[in-house]
């Protein structure tokens, strides 16, 4: 089920009630586990079997790896290979099967071999990319000697399945969540209120800004099959930049809030990414749990920056290309990741050659570099949003002023909405760039925060929303 649905409101209310009943901690954890399975099965019950399979496989493999700690590296590695094969096998079949078939067909066609792949009618299980990364991080941590296997199967299953992070992250590590299951947890009054506040903030981002304010403009521009003019191309892309941020950051904020209402802490997944100065800064602020996962389990094992300069660049590009592919079975996602890889490599090259470290001191330089970063990030969003390279090329031609005889696309009301909302998003992110929300709320008069909270909730209610799925569900 999705957070922005009436079903979730009923589900969450019942769960909160159950969690506050005078039951044993083990019973409450069982309740949470069952509720998490219900949360997942409410979308498509049969796919819960995949979730169980992924959970069970990594439970046993992590124990196998730990039991073989005194044996040869090959022995331990063979356990790891099974885990990776099963998890990547699931993703590969359900998410990349059709993509692989299509590419195989294209390859055969280039060799003049006629190959018609079977019809591929496989539904992508929601959140599969997220929970397989969660279970893999557990096994990898045990393999790399960073941790020991979890003793309780209940704690382990709950770690994998805990519904706030299950289908769209944050991609939690065992170290961040599992210890919280050892002692009874119940939110105190302030945690509950702050958790509800975060849920309202996340819903506001998703329902009011992403779906209500920006989606129409982005959809209209990216649906055009002819030339797109400069203003429309930029506004459509800016709209998507705001939509994807508010959609995904909104989800993560609701996840953090929901967990907090139950007494648990989940890590931040976003930290004002559109106020980033440079691309390494951007990736410290955007989808933090994925970027750190890729860093720790892909970039570093590949050698990171410990080898030659050339090898570092290769590792960087590989990580970003695979990060792009993780988002979806399409070469446009790979291009998106590749472009970010190029940005990161260019930034590294410039820093290495000039010796410049850190951020500029003067605010005007910081702002200029920040806006340049945001503009270049927008160029990458074109590949992320467009369905094809032709579609991306159309938008990019418009953005760089090469569109010929383009018809206007966006109505004035859409242009105003995009302009106002994007200005507000970017300005807010710059204001909050080096601040924590909790500290800001602590310093703000209570009545003002209450007023803002009321305004957001009222806007959510009157915008209503249609329960549209979050964009990252499809990944």
């Amino acid at each position: 089920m999705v957070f922005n649905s009436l079903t979730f409101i009923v589900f969450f209310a019942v769960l909160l009630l159950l969690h506050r009943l005078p039951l044993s901690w083990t019973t409450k954890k069982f309740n949470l586990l069952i509720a998490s399975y219900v949360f997942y099965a409410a979308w498509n019950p049969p796919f819960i079997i995949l979730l169980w399979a992924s959970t069970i496989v990594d439970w046993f493999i992590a124990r196998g790896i730990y039991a073989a700690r005194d044996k040869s590296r090959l022995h331990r590695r063979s356990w790891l290979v099974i885990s990776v094969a099963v998890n990547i096998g699931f993703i590969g079949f359900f998410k990349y099967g059709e993509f692989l078939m299509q590419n195989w067909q294209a390859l055969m066609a280039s060799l003049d071999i006629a190959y018609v792949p079977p019809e591929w009618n496989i539904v992508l299980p929601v959140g599969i990319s997220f929970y397989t990364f969660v279970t893999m991080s557990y096994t990898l941590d045990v393999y790399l000697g960073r941790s020991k296997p979890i003793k309780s199967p209940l704690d382990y299953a709950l770690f994998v399945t805990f519904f706030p992070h299950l289908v769209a992250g944050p991609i939690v590590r065992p170290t961040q969540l599992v210890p919280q299951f050892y002692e009874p947890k119940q939110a105190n009054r302030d945690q509950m209120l702050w958790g509800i506040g975060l849920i309202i903030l996340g819903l506001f981002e998703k329902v009011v800004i992403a779906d209500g304010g920006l989606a129409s403009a982005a959809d209209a521009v990216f649906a055009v099959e002819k030339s797109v003019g400069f203003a429309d191309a930029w506004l459509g892309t800016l709209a998507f930049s705001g939509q994807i941020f508010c959609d995904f950051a909104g989800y993560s904020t609701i996840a953090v809030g929901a967990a907090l209402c139950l007494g648990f802490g989940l890590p931040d997944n976003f930290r004002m990414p559109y106020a980033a100065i440079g691309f390494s800064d951007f990736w410290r602020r955007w989808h933090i749990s994925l970027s750190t996962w890729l860093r720790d389990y892909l970039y570093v094992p590949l050698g990171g920056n410990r080898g030659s300069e050339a090898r570092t660049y290769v590792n960087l590009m590989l990580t970003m290309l695979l990060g792009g592919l993780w988002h979806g079975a399409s070469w446009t996602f790979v291009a998106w990741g590749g472009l970010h890889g190029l940005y990161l490599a260019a930034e590294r090259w410039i820093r290495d050659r000039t010796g410049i470290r850190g951020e500029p001191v003067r605010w005007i330089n910081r702002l200029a570099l920040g806006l340049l970063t945001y503009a270049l990030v927008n160029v990458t969003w074109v590949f992320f949003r467009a369905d094809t390279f032709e579609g991306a090329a159309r938008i990019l031609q418009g953005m760089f002023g090469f569109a010929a005889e383009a018809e206007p696309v966006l109505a004035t009301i859409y242009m105003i909405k995009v302009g106002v909302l994007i200005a507000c998003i970017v300005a807010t992110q710059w204001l909050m760039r080096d601040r924590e929300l909790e500290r800001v709320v602590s310093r703000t008069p209570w009545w003002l925060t209450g007023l803002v909270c009321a305004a957001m909730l009222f806007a959510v209610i009157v915008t209503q929303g249609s329960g549209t799925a979050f964009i990252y569900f499809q990944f």
Partner: protein
Amino acid sequence: MGNSSMWSNDVTVREIPKARLVAMGWLAFVLVTAGVIAWELQMRSLGLVAGDLDDSKAHWAVERRKIAAGDYDDVVIIGSSRILFDTNLDVWEEMTGRRPIQLALAGTNPRPFLTDFAADPDFKGLLVVGVTPDIFFGDWLGIPLFAGLLDYWKEQTPSERFGHQVGLVLSRRLAFLDSSYTLTALIDQVNLRNRGEIVRPYLDVWKLWETGDDRQTHLWSQIEDNERLRGHARLVWGPFDGKAMDEEAIARACSQAVDAVKKIRARGGEVVFVRAPSASLYYEHELHAGPRAKTWDRLLRETGAYGIHFDDYPEMQGLEVPEWSHLSRDSATRFTRAYVGVLMKDVPWLSSRAAAQAGS
């Protein structure tokens, strides 16, 4: 070694603001409650009513599943908005003893649904197909709101089904829960000068109908009462330029209908076509764009199906068509009584079952 020592370094602990959260919560609660009450009163003053269930894919799916759960010997209505708004299900039931299943959809071409029923080997009921000429005889499939319905009713998730039921409970009590009067929809209704020939979203269809249980739908009363809303609707239906419809598209539509009617009749089902009234400039536009001989008459001739065209019956004249495309609520009742009366007389599938039911 205990578990806690293994993991304790990185565990996530959320900071809670040091602020008067309880006071904030109460303030927000009071303000939101007051705001929602004010919004509800404002929406009621604009003509929205509690109990208008807001047609949706989920609402349609409930009706569609009634066929799959029954004996497939149903009366099913498909079509676009005209047959949807212009049919009174209570009158149907009163006259025939059976309540039709209303599956017509606003802004949607019924042909894919006709084909779908033809492909369903279990369906052997009476299919009443509403014909709005510029939709039925064209290639346009319909508005995105209802896209994918042919599969949706089978694939709807448990979460969506439950959410729809909760939504119904709320919609019966709160008037403001209406997809045409969301904050976003209201902002998009602001009329500003646009570049080029852009007309949307201002010329998107605004609220036009009210929906109840069983998808009993009728024209929203405000379209009859509010000149601005009525004028906007007429503007949306335009331009009434009489531009001729594509002959090939008409041929494709007829051919598809022929195939479907044949299949349904072959297993004991029946198909009838109904052309509901239009008026004024819209009616004249339709006469020029798709003359009856080239569209309606051809459809009946090629399919061999029975059809009711409102022009042919005196009892279907003089009806009120406020925005030139849909009947007022009272006229819809009159029209239903008239066309069901004709069907009862001329369509054996219906009259024989009605007689059998009356006899039993």
